[in-house]
């Protein structure tokens, strides 16, 4: 298989890194060579977060450059725009419908991009994009923390991986008492 590249982006604390762990494990579970790359340290403090995951028969680089990502999974609308130039022209964006205004907006003078501008940029840069209410679905299930698994559910619709394998990996990665919740979160994502 040609290498398949994912970029998962969001804000420190949103659960981006767990989602990219699950996606990496899934690739290995399906039988691919896998590499994953992320940066720790400063980014934890409410900064912008980027994690990259690659699947393939043989993956060399742990990173991809701009213009090379097949799937952009964004946990936040502004962050989707920030990393949009990582997408290939025929790439797909799955974006959580959530606005987290950074300090430059909430107490500075800058403006958070409006809905029109966001949609226009997304449609310009991708083959298709999906803004999904992952946060709202997770809240319906009782916890914002499940947003990442809802988003993975939404992503799963675009990948040729059986549901069973997704669930096996999710069960392995989340604490036992949250397995049921995460199964529901994944199903909710699939339905979006």
């Amino acid at each position, binding site marked *: 298989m040609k290498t398949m590249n994912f970029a998962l982006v969001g*804000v*420190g604390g949103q659960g981006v890194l767990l989602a990219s762990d699950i996606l*990496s*494990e899934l690739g*290995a579970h399906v039988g691919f*060579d*896998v*590499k*994953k*790359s*992320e*940066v*720790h*340290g*400063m*980014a*934890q*403090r*409410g*900064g*912008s977060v980027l994690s990259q995951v690659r699947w393939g028969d043989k*993956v*060399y*680089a*742990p*990173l*991809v*450059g*701009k*213009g*090379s990502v097949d799937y952009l999974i964004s946990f936040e609308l*502004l*962050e989707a*725009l*920030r990393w*949009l*130039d990582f*997408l290939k*022209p025929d790439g797909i964006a799955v974006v959580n419908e959530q606005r987290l*205004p*950074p*300090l*430059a*907006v*909430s*107490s*500075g003078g*800058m*403006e*958070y*991009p409006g809905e029109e*501008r966001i949609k*226009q*940029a997304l449609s*310009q*840069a991708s083959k298709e994009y999906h803004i999904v209410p992952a946060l709202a679905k997770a809240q319906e299930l009782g916890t914002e923390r499940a947003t990442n698994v809802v988003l993975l559910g939404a992503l799963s619709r675009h990948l040729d991986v059986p549901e069973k394998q997704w669930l096996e990996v999710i069960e392995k990665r989340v604490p036992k008492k949250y397995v049921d919740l995460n199964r529901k979160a994944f199903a909710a994502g699939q339905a979006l």
Partner: protein
Amino acid sequence: MKVLLSGNEAVARGAYESGVVFASAYPGTPSTEILENIVQYEEIYAEWSPNEKVALDAAIGAAYAGKRALAAMKMVGLNVAAEGLFYSSHTGFDGALVIVNADDPGMHSSQNEQDNRHYAKFAKVPMLEPTDSQEAKDFVGLALDISEEFDTPVLLRLSTRICHSSALVELGERKAKKDEPKPFARNPAKYCMIPGFARRRHPVMEQRLKDLAEYAETFPYNKVEWGDRSLGVVANGVAYQYAREVFPEASFLRLGMSWPLPEKLIRDFASQVDKVVVVEELDPFLEEHLKIMGIEVAAGKEFFPILDEFNPGIVRDAAFKAGLVDETVEVQKVEMGDLPPRPPVLCAGCPHRPVYYMLKKYGLVVDSDIGCYALAVLPPIATTDTLGCMGASIGVAHGINRAGVEERAVATIGDSTLWHAGMPGLLNVVYNQSNTVTIILDNLTTAMTGHQPHPSTGRTLMGEKTVRGDFEALAKAMGYDEVRTVDPLNLEELEEALKASLDSNKPAVVITRSPCIFMYDERPPLYYVDLERCNACGRCFEIGCPAVIRSDEIHEKSGEAKAEINSILCFGCAVCEQVCARKAIHLVEE
């Protein structure tokens, strides 16, 4: 069995499998997780030392004791530990030592960019460089074997991208010799580096380098991979992986051992390809040595940048400009205008914030240090004038005050950083009697690297209870009369202590003690803004707290936005409540 491991996790596993019994480090991005993972293996004694110099000395001691030892540090940590590298290169060991050293190209979390391959040449020691997690694990054992065979410390050089990327790794079993104490192998002529003895060791080192260069010719990871012979790529570390993607058909010489270099192997390779290009991150280290060998390099640093971290896009772009590939990746131009940036910021409720708020108020020159409080350099806080390296703040402030400027200079330094490299500077101020005020930002943890224990937390890396270092007693023992401890979340107390210390015109220490918000078991009660009372004066915005935001409500007279507190971010520090002149900020009643 294959498992996904980051480079750091893989090094820890490698230490376990190769029989390491002693590991030491000081936390630093990107190498922190090595020791955090080693501690899970009960066969290995593991410690956070107060700094990298001590970590390396301790690991050298363990290797003198005949054991297999590992010391880990980020690249600037080796600057701190450099003396240990040099003397241990002279002495060698009865046991074995690997020094794991993580470079940070691109400065994701560092104060400078440096290429630590120079240290291998400088200290005349071998250096290995893995290209992925599997090799990161396996190279620990190889490094220790080389250390034993050639009686030398071995540098294992990682980079941020090796440390923090994950790949599949085949695990092995632990191979360890019996770990029973034996008599110390006394040999002062080998282990005491007085000039007379060191002079006898130097020729031994020179011979060792020649022997190692011979060994490098057959080192299994100095490897030729033949492809199309019109292009020969010489590459090392993670850059090899990027080059592999960009030049899928080319012939490769990958160098897993970057010092000393296998000259014969390199010459043979170069003679069998039409042209040689060198793909390496940071300095032209390999390129220069190839040129010294008289090998023509068709494309090196004039195309593949010295600055910043590589990725496949950068390597492809450079290869395109060098005429080595026909096309580069097209990056889409999307019209988006300016996006609001989202840099990391001090957390809401961070006890460092009010200290800088107060320093700004007094117009002081602020000399700062390495830690979360580096986030006070940029807006919204923007209250730092100098920041160099671990422990620099106090010496710099002393120098500014002694040389004299119109303002007073003060030093700010965190608790873990003070133990690391701040103590000699603190002593210098009081010994040489400058009127420098040193503020020790004591948040009871090593926050920036992920909350590791340190010498005044009362805990060790292995989770054992221990003594708590005492900053007040330390300052008094050094000779300070002016020592004050305050809660920085109490602005009145903080201001009084700062003012009294400045007014004393003597060497002074202010310890601002309040736990990092990650140290709390429960989130404290939150605050809210009474919009009726708020007159949009904006004083609470001056604190620069991410939880204090502009509301949609506009004050009629001024036309300014009133304040609002984000209930998700607020951590109840009450600093905004204290600066509000209108008494409009209150505790949320449960």
